[in-house]
């Protein structure tokens, strides 16, 4: 059992406010599969951007492929807009080492040359291993390495956070 309790809906409200302040008329949201993609879709609807929302996967650029293998490939990158010159705001549920973001930025550049790329997350759990920082985080906390924080989406669309022990 864990004493950590995170109200994902409360954090979502803060994320929505934070992303709302970051949006410019030409910003497009790109969610990182899978938790970030759910967030980006809901943010895009709630903030009424009138622009398509993208989904991006880190699978093909991960640096731990040699250890973890490919695993199940359910994630596919879908960017229904021109990447050249785009102002992109990446959205993810949790940032830790920053390696997913590195992989995702590489993936993004396979599609073109964006004008700018920024990152907003729900939770920054610390433990960075790369010089990468979000421009907005709804919460900052420190979690031990053996705990994994992941976002879940209930059938009614509400978000919850689960903490899992990893071995």
């Amino acid at each position: 059992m864990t004493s950590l309790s995170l109200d994902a809906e409360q954090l979502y409200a803060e994320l929505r406010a934070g992303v709302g302040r970051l949006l410019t008329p030409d910003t497009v949201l790109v969610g990182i599969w899978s938790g970030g993609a759910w967030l980006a879709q809901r943010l895009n609807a709630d903030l009424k951007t009138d622009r398509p929302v993208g989904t991006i996967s880190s699978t093909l650029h991960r640096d731990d492929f040699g250890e973890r293998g490919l695993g199940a490939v359910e994630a596919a990158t879908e960017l229904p807009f021109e990447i050249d010159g785009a102002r992109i705001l990446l959205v993810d549920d949790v940032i830790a080492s920053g390696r997913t973001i590195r992989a995702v930025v590489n993936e993004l550049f396979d599609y073109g040359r964006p004008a700018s790329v920024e990152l907003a997350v729900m939770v920054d759990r610390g433990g960075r291993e790369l010089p990468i920082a979000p421009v907005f985080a709804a919460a900052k906390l420190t979690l031990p390495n053996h705990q994994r924080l992941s976002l879940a989406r209930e059938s009614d669309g509400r978000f919850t956070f689960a903490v899992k022990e990893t071995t």
Partner: protein
Amino acid sequence: MLARRNPQLNAHGELIHLLSIEGLPRAILTQILDTAGTFLSVNDRDVKKVPLLRGKSVFNLFFENSTRTRTTFEIAAKRLSADVINLDIAKSSASKGESLLDTIANLSAMHADMFVVRHSESGAPYLIARHCAPHVHVVNAGDGRHAHPTQGLLDMYTIRHYKKSFNELTVAIVGDIVHSRVARSDIHALTTLGVPEIRAVGPKTLVPGDLREMGVRVCHDMREGVKDADVIIMLRLQNERMSGAMLPSAGEYFKSYGLTEDLLALAEPDAIVMHPGPINRGVEIDSRVADGSHSVILPQVTFGIAVRMAVMSILAGNDA
């Protein structure tokens, strides 16, 4: 008693070599097809390359010639950022008398990470898989009459792409089934994926009755063979088979077993026509069918690259 493990799988049941579709669980076939779907989109990007095999060396060992298969493996490996070394062994070491295992030992000393093997002897890729270093992966690119698993998988990808699911299909495989490693791989894959009716269609010399033991329906009449089929897989009639006194002539063969528009009209209205290539127009297939709206022969080639990317990246991610 210790069950003998499939040499293609590690202790966790993960794929480490692709030697044959026979004996692979449905979950692995599905994993390969799903992964191929992801790689198909790589072809649409500005940068048609992903770094999964960066720093790895893939050796194409073709003891038997095949420009098309070798090229698609080469493209697949290059799109995964591997270094590709093509060895036309038919013209080199083997002709100087070097044994297969000596060739492999020498190439392993050059730090190969993956061998893609085409050989006229059935079982040669198994021999290589058994004797190579534990980190080396082997892909069978066609061995004798035995298996051509990546062709079988790309055929399954093509069928799933157009038909969505396997469990209500009638699939007719037409031509020289007995000598065809493609047919054998297709039959194993279709069976594993749950296709209820698989037909083997052709003359008695090329479609013997004992194929029924593989669970297929044997048809020596072409009209009966293609009737109501959802998928028709035409096989290339190899010229050397005809000279073996098995068939009177290419023209005679076409009259009985060539796929024409009239015969195709007996199949389902949305039937697809496949062929592993290279096609012999006017021998096993009429040009109007090969170039017609039911033909998916060229998409097969495109899907083949994605399927080979999937196979190589899955193998490279799994340890022995």
